[in-house]
Structures are given as structure tokens and as C-alpha cells.
């Protein structure tokens, strides 16, 4: 046995040890990160993503009709803060809006105007009927007032009250967001842009 043989043996032992160690480490890593692909990559539908984006950026049209409009304005200000739900950007042009809050009674002469504004809004669009008057005519059961705005435009969410407070309207917007999310990626959502 020479000194060289002894050195070769030591080297071989060392190399085999390293190999074993590397194998252990790789096995451990395989075990630790076996679910990595599921943790780091989200699989979803494009429609769901679009719906998520839409529900968090509802831009209402500036369309105040009566006393409900005061509550609608209060909803947008800092105290109730519709910005928390992405619905604070009231647009003066219906062409930049995708949500119409019908806030107040609609007279017979206002109905065609309301319909025109609704038609001018780009798709997809949603309608919240705010208050008793917009929903069913309220106390105005007479010749002058349309008995429910759903006879003119399709309504997604009805908010009861006379007038409903800002928090009630916020709840209506949250309900509308739920509706958008439930519809997202389905045929109903496709119909809205058809």
C-alpha cells in the first residue's frame, strides 16, 4: 500500500459521500417543492378575470333625478366613500360610464331621455334602480310618473327606501358586484356585450 493508493481511496469515499448528499438534497427538494406549480400559477377563465376587472371599476353616469340623488352624491363623498368599491368616478358623459343609478322618480317626459342615455352607454352596462319611485313609482301613483323604471330599461339591482341611505346604495353596489362576478364567463355576460 503506497501513499498514493491511500489518497485515491479517500478521494473515492469523499466523492461517493458527495453524490449521496446531493441525491438526498435533490430528493428533499423534490419533496418540498412538489406542489410548487400549483402555488405559483393561477388557472382561471378569461371571462372571470374580465368580470373581476369590471366589478372593481364601475363608473356611474352622473344622472340625478330627485332627492335620491342627494344620497347618491353622499355615497361618493369621503364619509361613505364609494371609492372603496371602485365606483366613485361619476362621469358626466354616458359614453364613459357603465353603470346608471336611476336616483329618483322618472316622469313620463323624462322616460325617453333616460332611455337615450342608457342607449348611449357602452356595453356592458348595468342599471341600479334607487329608491321606491324608480322601482315602482313610489307615492306618485299618477299620470305624471312612470310606474317603475324597469318599464324603460332593464334593471339589475333594486335598492328600496325613500330615499335609501348611502350605505343602502353601497350595499346595492356590492350586490351588483356579486352579480357581475357570478355572471362572469357565462353566457349572460356574453349577452351583455352582444
Amino acid at each position: 500500500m503506497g501513499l498514493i493508493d491511500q489518497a485515491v481511496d479517500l478521494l473515492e469515499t469523499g466523492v461517493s459521500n458527495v453524490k449521496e448528499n446531493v441525491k438526498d438534497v435533490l430528493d428533499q427538494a423534490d419533496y418540498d417543492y412538489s406542489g410548487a406549480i400549483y402555488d405559483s400559477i393561477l388557472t382561471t377563465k378569461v371571462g372571470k378575470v374580465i368580470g373581476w376587472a369590471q366589478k372593481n371599476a364601475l363608473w356611474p353616469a352622473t344622472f340625478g333625478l330627485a332627492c335620491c340623488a342627494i344620497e347618491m352624491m353622499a355615497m361618493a363623498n369621503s364619509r361613505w366613500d364609494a371609492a372603496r368599491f371602485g365606483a366613485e368616478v361619476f362621469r358626466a358623459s354616458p359614453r364613459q360610464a357603465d353603470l346608471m343609478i336611476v336616483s329618483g322618480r322618472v316622469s313620463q317626459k323624462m322616460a325617453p331621455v333616460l332611455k337615450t342615455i342608457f342607449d348611449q352607454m357602452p356595453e356592458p352596462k348595468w342599471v341600479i334602480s334607487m329608491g321606491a319611485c324608480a322601482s315602482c313609482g313610489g307615492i306618485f301613483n299618477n299620470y305624471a310618473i312612470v310606474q317603475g323604471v324597469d318599464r324603460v330599461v332593464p334593471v339589475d339591482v333594486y335598492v328600496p327606501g325613500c330615499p335609501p341611505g348611502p350605505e343602502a346604495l353601497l350595499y346595492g353596489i356590492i350586490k351588483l358586484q356579486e352579480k357581475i362576478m357570478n355572471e362572469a364567463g357565462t353566457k349572460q355576460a356574453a349577452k351583455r356585450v352582444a
Partner: protein
Amino acid sequence: MTSEEIVEKIKTDQGKAINSSEVNLGDSVIFVGAERIHDIAEYLKNDPDLDFDYLSNITGTDYLNEEREPRFEVVYELHSIEKNHSIRIRVGLDEEDPTIPTVSDLWKGALYPERELFDMFGFDIKGHSNLSRLIMPEEWEGNPLRKDYPLTIEDVTFSHNREFKQDLVKSKPRTR
């Protein structure tokens, strides 16, 4: 002039043209036939002592189901800015032919109230330059301020009387 003086002056000047006159709660009121209203209005406006240069308002009334003839009445409220006195002219109109001449040639401001009369009561304003509906939509049928116009557009189904309510729900007509 006081209301009594106004009524007395009109009686002496135009006694034959007016039907009757009174001072009601301090207001001078004259009753005029529809065929004489334009002459009387012209006299009231141009007479230097009366000088009714301002037409405050024109309204209508419907005395359906009341012991009063004729059924309709047009009420003119005149005021003199210079003299600071007022008068009310009541013009009765028949149910069959509610026609009245315009006074918009004397007071320009009569155009809109007269359109409102046409819209709300269906009175025919002779000589009006633009007789069309003012408040209701153009294609509307009926005159809403007539007493025989339906008060509600929909039946109210709420009632404390349960049987009445059920009947109403069953027979509820199709709404517009």
C-alpha cells in the same frame, strides 16, 4: 283704488258686458262670458284709472259633481304694477264647447298659461299662435286636471280589508 272702487268703476263703465261682480275676501272679482272676455281684458288694460298692465296668472277650474254651472271656469289674475291693485276675472265655459279667445295679444305672458290650459283641461284657445301640449308629452291622451280623469294610473293592491285586496289582485288590469 280699493277693490270696492274697482268693482264700482267696472260696473258703471261696462255694466252690460259683465255678468256679475263681487268683492270676495277683499279681492275684486268679476264674472264674464267667454264671448266678452277679450273686450273686457282690453278695457281693463287700457283704462288709465285701472291700468292692469301685468297678467299674474291664468288658471282653470273644473266644477264636476258640484252644484255650479257651467262646469269649467278660466280664472285670470290681473295686477297693476303702477297702481298696485289687482282683479280676478272668472270666465265660465260650457262642457260641450270649452272655447275661449286668447289674450296673448294684450299680454305676451299669456301664451304659456294658455298652453297649460289647453294641455291640462283641453280648452280650445282661439287665436293662440302655438296651441300644443306644454307639460304632458305630445302624444298624450286626455287632460289630467279634469275631474273625470283617473286619479291613479295603477290600482293600489294594499288594503287592510283582505277580501277586497284579493278581489283587486284578481281583477287587476294590465298596466301601461
